[in-house]
């Protein structure tokens, strides 16, 4: 009896932990939706901020986020896919080289995002950008300052492990027999990878890309000083322009805005837009991943 009661109590405690988590999630969703819903409409999405950012929409922030993630994807996905192909197809699991690569990828995945920001500032802006200016523009400042290119590349480094992990998982679900059939027909290993392995892991590449975009769209720390701007009256025209981003917009509006209370609806609505964006991307990725895993069974 006593033991039974103790069992019930402790089981109950574990159940309560789950409930706490779920309640917090629902509370967060509820409050953000409630706070942002009234402000969220077409004009909010399609207009520029007005009156010192106290009114108007978030159009440049949406476009800025989209462009940044686009450039980021173009950099991170090819690198990620090739690294995943190496790890899944070429690497000898026991070799020191392959294990070091794995460790490096895991390290990239856990390095705090602010460190990527520092790296972007020190490497892309202070080193690559400065040297590009010195070489091509005779020292005139163009690339040696924060812009959308450096921010996107910084973000690409952060999302690289996301792509690698997803794609490698997908490649590993391709049945061995398919590779063997291809090789038996006289294809070389490279031809097999190009014609069998990569097409077969298309869904995985898509999943990795979507997860990377969702991650990149939400991160703020890496772009704090590599390219995000407080306010711009135009969307970026070239790679050397700065850009506005949804996450950064939330941060400055809620901490550094001239009138934090008055702009609360805008802050909530921006947060809601960002959440809708990342959640719908995640939902697609989860569905795709579920399909890959089912196919593997």
């Amino acid at each position, binding site marked *: 009896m006593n033991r039974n009661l*103790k*069992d019930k109590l402790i089981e109950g405690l574990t159940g309560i*932990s789950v409930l706490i988590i779920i309640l917090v999630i629902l509370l967060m969703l509820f*409050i953000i939706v409630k706070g942002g819903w009234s402000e969220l409409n077409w004009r909010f999405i399609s207009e520029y901020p007005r009156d010192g950012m106290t009114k108007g929409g978030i159009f440049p922030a949406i476009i800025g986020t989209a462009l940044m993630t686009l450039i980021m994807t173009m950099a991170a996905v090819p690198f990620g896919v090739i690294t995943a192909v190496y790890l899944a197809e070429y690497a000898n699991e026991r070799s020191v080289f392959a294990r070091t690569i794995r460790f490096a990828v895991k390290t990239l995945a856990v390095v705090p995002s602010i460190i990527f920001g520092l790296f972007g500032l020190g490497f892309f802006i202070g080193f690559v950008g400065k040297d590009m200016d010195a070489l091509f523009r005779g020292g005139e400042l163009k690339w040696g300052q924060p812009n959308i290119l450096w921010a996107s590349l910084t973000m690409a480094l952060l999302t690289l492990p996301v792509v690698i992990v997803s794609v490698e998982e997908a490649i590993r679900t391709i049945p061995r027999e398919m590779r063997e059939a291809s090789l038996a027909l006289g294809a070389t290993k490279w031809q097999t990878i190009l014609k069998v392995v990569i097409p077969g892991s298309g869904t995985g590449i898509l999943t990795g890309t979507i997860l990377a975009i969702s991650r990149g769209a939400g991160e703020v*720390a890496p772009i704090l000083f590599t390219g995000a701007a407080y306010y711009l009256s135009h969307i970026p025209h070239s790679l050397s322009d700065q850009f506005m981003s949804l996450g950064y917009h939330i941060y400055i509006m809620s901490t550094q805005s001239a009138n934090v209370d008055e702009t609360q609806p805008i802050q909530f609505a921006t947060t809601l837009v960002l959440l809708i964006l990342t959640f719908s991307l995640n939902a697609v990725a989860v569905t795709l991943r579920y399909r890959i895993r089912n196919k593997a069974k």
Partner: protein
Amino acid sequence: MKEMISAGTGAGSMMGRPASFSRKRFRFSDWFAEKFIKFIAFMSIALVALIFIFVFREASPVFRMDAVKKVVDQSLVPEVYGAVPDQPVAEAPNHQEASAPDPATPGIKPSSTLLSREWMPVSDEPRYGLIPLFLGTLKVTVIALLFAAPVAILAAIYTSMFARPGVREFIKPLVELLAGFPSVVIGFFALMVLASILQNLFGYASRLNAFVGGIAMGLAALPVIYTLTEDALTAVPKTYSEASLGLGASKRQTAFHVVLPAAVPGVFAAVILGLGRIFGETMIALMATGNAALTSLNPFESVRTLSATIGAEMAEVVFGGTHYGVLFLIGSLLFIFTFLLNAVSEFYIKNLVVRKYQSRK
């Protein structure tokens, strides 16, 4: 594939021309593709190395300026002190910009204040004491872990041990939804809502403090700890719990005395990774901790964490200056710490993988 090659060799040697048959025809495209792929894969190692190098490189002026200062101090007699412009090593334009605020602080070397208890980087007499920042980070991290680790581990135990299969399929993705919240959103929630709720509950004075920040960061670390713990618990061979249940132990006893101990390395790795996540978290720290560099142990006072300091101040510093270097120094410390944490958890996860493999046999 390996069998195929060895089969090929076997056939070849039977035919009496092993060399030509076992050595596959050299194809340039294949050779090149392999080298290229290997090179790209190598880039991820190079990247980690580059991050190391560049974050440290930017931090090094803190100590180099020290050396410069010392030379100046020793070689120049006090009366010519005003002759700052001919500082010997100030060849880069950055250094000249950087040395601008320095004349105001004749006696103080940048790095000698690193261990002081004041973080006042923009005052007339700048002090770069890291103690309050370390203390702040420690306070927030402890609070976040004390909140996140028990809740996440208990929830993982419920999910993998007690929940009915139908419920489990529903709980796991729901909890992992929390991982989809960008940290700026959690920070925003903490700033706008959580801070007020907690202040009403506990009635402390400053609205944003280590406690609020800690709880919010705990929310960010929860899904990390939860998912990895759940994986570790599920990886424990079914035979363990079957044996325990068969001997008459209750589900609770089985969970806490058999399965959980068997999964300890994985749970430990999960907590370590959660710790890394909290330690480097920037946006939540910036938004919810109040950002005052106080040296106090009171959890309800405002704090400034290491990462938040970088995030808040980097945009305003002189490129290449002392303050800039100190912020990079903080970054190097963060990087080293998370690197070590990852190395430790890697070691434990490897153990766990071996265990997983054994259970499948």
